[in-house]
Structures are given as C-alpha cells and as structure tokens.
C-alpha cells in the first residue's frame, strides 16, 4: 500500500517533464511546426545537471538554497494528490490547505531567490509573481473549499474517494463552477498563456522567466523540474477532484496498469486543451490579469454559495 503511494509520487514527479514536452509538441503541431521531441525536457534537465552553477557576487545563502526548497516543497505537495488510486502518501491526514500552502512555500522562496540576484529582472519577476499569486490564492482555496464542503472532508484523498462514488451524470452547479475557477487558477499558477508566457524572454512580459534569469546549472534544473511538477500536480488535482473515474479500486497489477493508462490519457486531454488555448489566444496585458483572476474568484465564491443553496 505504502509502495503504491510512493510510486504515485514518483510517477507524478517523473512524468512532469514529459507533460511539458507533450504540450510543447502539440502546440508546435497546431501551429504547423514540427516541434522538438517530447523527451527534450529530460535532455535539458540532464544537461543542466551537468553544467556549472553560476552565482552572482551579491548572492547569499538564500540564493543557493532557494531552488532546493522550491523543489522539496513542490515534491512534498505531490504526496497529497491521488493519481492512480483513491489514496495518497500523506492523503489521509494532509488536507488541501496544507497542499496550497506548500505551493506557497515554494513560491515564496523562489521570489526570494530571484531578488537575491541583485538585478532588476529578479525584482520585476518577483513583484509580478506576488501580484498574480496573491490574487490566485483566493479562487484556488475557495474552489477547493466548495468541493470539500460537498464531500464533507478536507483531505484531498477523501474528496477524490467521494467523487469516485458519485454518478458522472449528477453534474452539480458547484462542480461546474469550481472546475472553471480551478482551471483558471491552474493556468495562472503554472504561468501559462494568457497569464504568463513560458517561452518568452522579453522583459516587458515575463514573470517566471524573469525570476529564474540569474539561475543556471543544477539550480536552474531543480527550479524547472519543480515548475514542471507543479503543472502536472495541478492537472492531477483537476483530474482527481473532477474526473477521477477509472482509478484503481483494488490493488491488483491489472487494475493499476489500467488506472495508469487512464490517468495518462486524461493528462493528455488536458495537455491538448492547454495547447489549443495557448495557440488560439494572446497573452493578457499585465493589468488585465487581476481581471482574469477576478473572474475565477467570482466563480469560486458562487460555487461556495451554491453548496448552501443546493442543499
């Protein structure tokens, strides 16, 4: 049982770069390009781990440790999300609040690391990240609160187990609204278009890229891996909370293999959705992002209110 849970965490951490690669490949295909191999993010990581670590003269110990804390907190958060089976390593006692705040821990140290470089880019990225994440916190938590109220439990594993028992056709307004809110937040939190452009290096627009500008070598590898894990975590969260059907009921090899395939298929569908969205709309102007997150907040608030109305 515990090995299954550990395996789940390892799966989420291991496939994270692949998810990125698949999105990039799908985007390339949609835009009529060939695109790089879906395994390219792994090659990038290997190469970065081999390179030397460049450190600015002004940097302190925070600069050195920030990538490790970012990575550690994100991977620990992965221990909360059930992917293949209705349980998780820390799923029985760790709830969604802890999950959200672990992500906040990683974000805070990423911002500090960015500001330690002593250039203006780091501060710029950290400042923008502060704006986006401060406003994204509300819909993220409220969306999960709404679902938790329905499931009458605060642990993510409990919510997933409750949803599995429900009938897919019993769609409720709460689920629809919470899904919309969380999907918008997932885009903002992982720095995808229209909130941030993961491929840009233009100082006027970049958020995440500006923060990691001073990092190189193994440090950069850890940060990039952590942000890939975050993306696959949030996708797994959406899948687990809103469409967990197909998860393994018991612990047999056949059921687990089937569950893995179903899970990968769902991740692929979400990746396709991201690729389509990123290819069809433009990045929002910086000061329209609060508006975007305001829509998410309104949906999340409505979801919470509906939990009481729909009783």
């Amino acid at each position: 049982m515990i090995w299954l849970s550990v395996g789940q965490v390892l799966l989420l951490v291991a496939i994270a770069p692949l998810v990125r690669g698949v999105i990039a490949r799908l985007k390339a295909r949609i835009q009529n390009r060939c695109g790089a191999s879906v395994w390219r993010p792994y090659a990038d990581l290997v190469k970065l781990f081999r390179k030397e670590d460049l450190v600015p003269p002004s940097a302190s110990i925070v600069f050195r440790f920030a990538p490790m804390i970012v990575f550690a907190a994100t991977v620990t958060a992965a221990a909360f999300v059930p992917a293949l089976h209705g349980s998780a390593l820390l799923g029985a006692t760790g709830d969604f609040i802890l999950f959200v705040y672990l992500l906040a821990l990683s974000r805070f140290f990423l911002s500090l690391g960015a500001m330690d470089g002593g250039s203006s880019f780091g501060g710029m990225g950290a400042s923008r990240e502060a704006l986006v994440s401060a406003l994204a916190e509300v819909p993220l938590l409220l969306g999960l609160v709404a679902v938790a109220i329905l499931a009458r439990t605060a642990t993510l594993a409990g919510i997933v187990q409750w949803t599995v028992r429900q009938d897919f056709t019993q769609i409720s307004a709460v689920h629809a609204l919470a899904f919309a809110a969380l999907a918008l937040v997932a885009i903002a939190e992982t720095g995808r278009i229209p909130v941030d452009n993961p491929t840009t290096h233009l100082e006027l627009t970049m958020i995440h890229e500006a923060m990691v500008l001073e990092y190189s070598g193994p440090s950069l590898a850890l940060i990039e891996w952590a942000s890939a894990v975050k993306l696959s975590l949030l996708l797994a969260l959406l899948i687990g909370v809103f469409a967990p059907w197909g998860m393994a009921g018991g612990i047999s090899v056949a059921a687990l293999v089937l569950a893995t395939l179903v899970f990968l298929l769902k991740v692929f569908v979400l990746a396709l959705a991201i690729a389509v969205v990123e290819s069809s709309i433009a990045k929002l102007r910086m000061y329209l992002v609060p508006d975007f997150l305001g829509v998410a907040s309104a949906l999340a608030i409505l979801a919470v209110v509906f939990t009481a109305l729909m009783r």
Partner: protein
Amino acid sequence: MIQTLFDAFLIGLLCIPAVILAGGRRRSIRVLASALLLIGLLAGTAVAGVSFWRGDRLAIDLSQLTPLPFSVAVDRLSAFFLLLICGVGAAVTLFSYAYVEHHYTGRRRDWLWALLPLFLLSMMLVVTASTAFAFLFGWELMTLFSAGLIVIDGDSEQRRHSLYVYLLMMHAGAAAVAAGFLLFLPNAAGLSFASMRTAAALMPAGLRTAIFLLAFIGFGAKAGIIPLHIWLPKAHPIAPSPVSALMSGVMLKTAVYGFVRFGFDFLGAGPDWWGYLVLAAGAVSGVLGVLYAIAEHDLKRLLAYHSVENIGIIYLGLGAALVFRAHNAPVWVALALLAALLHTLNHGLFKSLLFLGAGAVSHAAHTLDIEELGGLLKRMRTTGAAFLVACCSIIGLPIFNGFISEWLTFRSFLAGSALGSMPASVVLPLMAGVLALIGGLAAACFAKVYGVAFLGRPRSAQADHAQEVPFAMRASMVLLAVPCVVIGIAPGFVLRPLSAALQQFLPGTVLPEEAVSIAGVMPWIAAAVLALVFTATAIRRVTRITPTWACGLPGLDSRMQYTSTSFSKPLRRVFSQVYKPDRTLEILPADRPYFPTAISYRSVRTTSFEKSLYRPAVEAIVGTAHRLRRLQTGNIQVYLLYIFMALVALLVFMRFA
C-alpha cells in the same frame, strides 16, 4: 512551591525599579538589575508554563490589606497569557541589555530600566487580575508605562502628536471597558470576576448586548482593529525597538485576553450577529492592514500595520467561535477559539522577533527605511536567519508556527458549512477566501521586505558597512525563532494544554480528532521537506561566481535593483481604491511647462479613515465646544440664571417622572 515562586517573582520584579533609581549611575547596578529581571522573567515563564500544562491555580488576595478589592488569580487562560508575557519579556530583556547600553545614556537609560519591569508587571496584572478593580488598575498603568517608555526616546512636535493620539485612543478604550464592567453592577454582588460570571446568567439580553459592544469597542481600540487602529502606526515607530516588540507582541494580546474573558467567560451565548460583527471587523482589519503595510517602506510602520492584519486574523477566529456558540456547536467553538488563541501566541512570538530584528537592523545600519538597506543577510547572518524565520512564520508557511494557527482557522471556517443554517453556512466558508487573500498579500509584503532589506546588494553606504549585532541581541532573536519553528513542526505539545484550557468555558467538549490531525502530519511534512533539501544538496555542483547579468552593459549598480516602491507598485495599482493618494505635481515656472526649472512631485497618503471618519468627528466636537463657549459669559447673574433654570427643570422633571 509554585505559589511561593510566583509570589517571589512578583515581588522581585517590583523591586527592580527601586534598585535602579536608587543605585545611581553605576554600571554594575544596571547589570545586576537586568540580570535580576531576566531571572525573574525566566522564573515567571516556568511558573506560567507549569500552571498552563498542569492546570494549577494560583491566587494572591490583597483585599484584606488594601481598602479596595485587589486580588489576582491564575487559571489556565491567564497562565497561557502569562507564559507569553514572561517568555517574550525575557527575550526582550536580553535584547535590551545590549541595545540600551549602546543607544541610551544617563537618566534616560535609568528610566528605561525602571519602566521596563513596571510595564511588564502591569501587563501581568491585567492578565491575572480577578477583580474588575485590579484589571482596570493594570490596564491604565499599562498605557501610562508604555507612554513613558515612548517619551524616553526623544521629544518633538510630531512625536508629541503621535503620543497624544495614542493616549487619547487608549483612554477612550479604557472608558468603554470600565463602562462594560460597571454595567454588571446592577445584577452582580461585587466586581470580582466570579460574581460577574454568575450575574451574567441573570441579566436581560439587552444589557448583555450593551456589555458586549462596550467590550468590543474598548478592547478593539487596544487591539487596533480598523477603524480604531490609527494609534498603532503612529506609536510603534517612535518607541524604542524593544518596547515596540513588547507593545506589538504582547500588549495587544492583553486586549485579546480581555475580549475572550468578556465574550466567552463572563457573557454566555449571545445572538449570532455578535459573531458576524467580530468577523467583519477581523476581515476588514486583516485585508486593509496588510494592504496598508504593502505600501509602507519604513520597517517599523510596516510591521505595525501587520499587527493590525494579525489582530484581524485573531478576530476572524474569535468571530467564528461566537457564531458557533450562537448556534450551539461547542466542538467548533473550541476549534475556533483554539485557532485564535494559538495565533495570539504565535503572533506574540514572531512579531516581537520581527521588531527585535528591526531594532538590530537600525542598530547596524542606522536606518529603518528599507529603500536604504539591502544585502544585510551576508553581513548579519544570525539576524538575517532569525528574521527569515519570522517572515515565514507571519506569512503562515508550513513548518512554521503561523501556519498551524491559520490552518486551524481555515478548518473552523470549513466546519461552518456543517451548521446548516443559512447565513452561517455561507459566510463562514467565504471567510476562508478572505483569509487566503490576507495570506497571499502578506506573502507579497514579506517577499518585498526580506528581498529588499536583506537580499541583493546594499543600497546605501550604511547598509554596506553594517556589522552583526552583539551576542545578547543575537541570542534573544534565536530564543524567539526557536519556538516559532518548534511549534510549526510539533504543534501537539501546545495544542493539548490549550484545548484543555478551553474546558474552562466549554466543559466536556473534546476536539474532533480530524480537526487536530495537523499535529500528526506536520512532523512528516517537515521530515519530507528537509530530507528532499538534504538530497538536493548532495547533487554534485561546481560553483563559479560571475557578475549579475546586466544585458551586456557594464556597471550594474544597486540603483538598478527593484526598490520597495517599485515592487509594491502592481499591487498598489490593483488596489488603488484603498490608497487614494494625494498627488501633487508642481512645475516651475508655471507658464513654461515644457522648459521647467524645477519639478517637484509629492504623494501623501493619509488613510481614508483619518480623512473621512476621524477628522469630521474631531471637527464636530471642536465646533460644538466652540458653540458651548457662548454659555460662558462671565456674568455672574447668568450663572445664577443657569442654577435657577436647573432647579425649575428638576422640579418639573420630578413632578412628571
């Protein structure tokens, strides 16, 4: 044994000022006094700790000796607050030992050492008093001694005004508290807490509501809930750093203590709007407090606004507890109260640590303007590390203590949906969103503070030449940082006695196991995070120091770093409705706008509360006073007429009443 130690500790503390003032300017006397104070406070911590964990009751009754009913008693709730006062007080004393010697001389230094123990003692009196007289006596002394400590730091028109506002707000609050106590009198045999408790059960609902509102306003003024907060950002920056640490970390908590005593001990369950009122006050204080803090770049003012924010979080917990109490759900009352009280302790720890850190920064770099700081972590390692712990705690990041209390608050909000009655089951879960917003904004604010002040490169020569502070100061900060982390990783050892302390108001309630599951999971989280960080350090790496990327141009200097103002600009722009700055742009000469000789730009931010609430109120009072002056003619016959008219009016009144 404990009782004797308690008596000895109180007497010892009372003696110190006399020793200081009588002992003259000798250094040995001061060292002796501060050592005595430290030992006394450590003894007090031990006493409070033992009676908090074991639940022993201590009492000293002086009613026989004095003409007034003056007695103190320590129950578990008092012991909890006593523990906070003594523990933080000990760390602050240790800090002051080094700080005061460097920054103060002569009589000012003597007065500081004399007033500090008295200030601590007055706060202890407030939390241990068991009669209304003793409580109010301590309450007033606390205001006066803290004002005295502020006066020590210097004198100017500006400081006098700030002090005046502080005293005015405090006395208005004290008047409301005193009125709250007096309203018990018609039904109570006396003003001892025990008789007030029994009297409250017999009182009509209207009277209880009146008492509740008076307590809300009176203690709210002390706690600094918005709109009664205006004294906080004025008084904290002008006090000596150790004193601000005590005022913000500990003195505000006495107001929380008083409110909990009134709301949960004396008065029974009230209507649910009491809870919504407190929730609204908490939400407004929390959100506006952190938004005002974001716009500040004076470290102490910024921290003062964060006190407003954290009091808001505490009030959110208290409000949720009141709502649960009105709906007769004692289990959740216990959870919400637990959250509020634990956050009180946590805030006491990390906020005093932050203020001591600010003191260390001003000691080392001679400024508190974070635009002039930068790169301090490399120069002050221990201070920087302790300050980072405090930052992580105040934001509420996991494995630090602030997270535990915020988690408990979240869980009590979530439980609101189980009540099933309409406003509560929507309002409480939505408050989770407010708390999330506060948390997100606080994270932004402290990323700014730490990033600008402690990281990057120094922004001024003073910051560049900053050196680590003396050992006593460092030790005191580490002393406060350790419990922040310990409570964050293993909260169980505080949660258990604290929930036992709540048995006093809620007999027979047991917290649901799921609700305190955090105590079980936090060690695992901490272990996982630390193990992963440790694994990551094992990665082979070759480090090379290279200049920061400057887009290929030479000469990147500290002026090109993001400043505090520019960091907060996006948030200030999004929440511009809150700030409404008065901006003036003057171009000289006015007739030649395109060829100016001088351009001056000024942006003044007065909070809207001063502009739209206090100023009109003050003007109305002054206006009325001017109009009333017409009664003062100076003519003796007119005064006789007044007396005559009063007599006639009284007779008429007596006839018809």
